[in-house]
């Protein structure tokens, strides 16, 4: 009983903390962040360990269990999808930044940003990355943070709403490591829908094609403002 109370209190705390996080609005790219005098820039890709399925609106536990059971073949298949094309986003960004005569340092990819403390200021970076400045001898950090990668199907409690879509969702931003100020902040959410005969196990060709199309569209969304 004590453990249950503690768990409930923790859950409440997490909900309150989430509500308190400032909503970051898009920040236009500052020209000085990517001009030839900008100094060395680090590039980091943050993405989930594997693609997944998401069921927004299936909010009760039983609804979520039902949604997952209805999509069990898709769930198993999604986890096997390649992430290699997502890594090409980083390659494209490196090419674009090098074209601008910037010295780009490739930082190791990560699956989350838990190692960095939160900064609850809307005009600043979501996390404190200042320690990376001396560690990698960089002035700025560009992060492509993909939070959602895979397939999404909207639900209203137990009932699916419409068709599943391929989804790539997250933010791309540049942080000035001297001040943690945001010099670019681009939230993105790409969705690609296939036709109504989407349920084609075991290899889901329509949805798989949409998945790779969504990655390509996300790549263009992220790279285009820098060109």
């Amino acid at each position: 009983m004590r453990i249950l109370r503690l768990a409930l209190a923790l859950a409440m705390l997490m909900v309150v903390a989430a509500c308190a996080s400032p909503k970051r609005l898009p920040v236009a790219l500052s020209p000085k962040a990517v001009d030839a005098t900008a100094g060395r820039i680090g590039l980091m890709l943050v993405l989930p360990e594997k693609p997944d399925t998401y069921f927004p609106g299936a909010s009760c536990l039983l609804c979520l269990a039902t949604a997952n059971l209805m999509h069990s073949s898709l769930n198993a298949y999604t986890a096997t999808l390649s992430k290699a094309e997502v890594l090409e986003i980083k390659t494209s960004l490196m090419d674009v930044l090098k074209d601008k005569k910037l010295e780009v340092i490739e930082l190791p990819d990560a699956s989350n940003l838990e190692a960095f403390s939160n900064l609850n200021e809307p005009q600043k970076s979501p996390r404190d990355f200042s320690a990376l400045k001396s560690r990698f001898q960089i002035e700025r950090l560009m992060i492509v943070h993909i939070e959602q990668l895979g397939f999404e199907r909207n639900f209203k409690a137990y009932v699916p709403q419409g068709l599943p879509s391929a989804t790539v969702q997250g933010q791309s931003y540049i942080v000035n490591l001297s001040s943690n100020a945001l010099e670019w902040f681009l939230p993105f959410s790409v969705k690609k829908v296939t036709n109504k005969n989407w349920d084609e196990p075991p290899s889901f060709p329509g949805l798989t094609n949409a998945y790779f199309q969504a990655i390509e569209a996300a790549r263009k969304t992220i790279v285009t403002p820098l060109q």
Partner: protein
Amino acid sequence: MTWVRLFSTYARNKRTGIFVLALSVLGLHVNASAEGDKELLQAPLPSLSESNWQWSIPVDFEFQLSGAEANDSQGKPGTMLYPGGNGLIFLASVLTHALINSTANQVKEQSAARRANKIVAPYRELLSQLDLNSLMGDLTTAWPPLGETFLPSGNAKLKNDWLVEVRPAFVLAADARTISAHIWIAFWPSSGSDRPKALRQVQVMSTPIKAEVPESVWKQDEGKRLRATLVGLVAEGLEIGLADAFVDPALPQRSVPYTDGREDSIERGQFIRSDCGRVLLRNLRGWLMSLPARSNSSSQPMDEHCATTVRRLG
């Protein structure tokens, strides 16, 4: 797997477990793709020589050009409050919700179909003058090698070993810049059979129209460009299907870039070749697809074969 744990927890209560399973079964869909067709798509083609086959279009197969349906039926997430009471009332309310939702989805589909019909509406008069017989007549004169092997529907008997049955359907893109032909090709032995020896499905997209108003291009000279493109798409698709480009099954899949004139996109599949400003691939469903390449994808000089392709596809 979090959901497995969740389900196990709920399944401890037998009635709830049965309820979850019932909902899941309701949500399952019938897999539309016939395994038999898949097998025939991969079956080797019969060996066709210059004189042992003819091609034809089934007598009852009609000309169809439709607008591309916009697949935007994603719905919106939300919450739903179901009435309390016993489990049966709850189950009935969830089923009623599912039924209402299904009706709403049908309305959305009808609306998408109406939008698709709007795309072809400006061409109604022009399309009413077209039929497959006259288009194939154009094809036999415009592309004589294919014309020589054409067997007019119901007019003559097959004199060769193989009948290649062709069923084309056309789709006009939402911005009217391209037309895609979806061509089903079945290879029937003349000895009689209830099943074709092999099937091929080919999709060919025309070269995008760059003009501001594509409608005026399709309609000029009483629809000459539209007619020529429809014929060219069938000729090109038929040749691709008959050539049956060899694709090593071990060839890895990749994202093949192409353009539809409005935006650059990719199609996932096994890349076969890039020439004449086009890319050819076998997509994830096993269909052969010929798509316009992005402008920088091909740098090869134009030979006679390419000149033919360019003339055919606009």
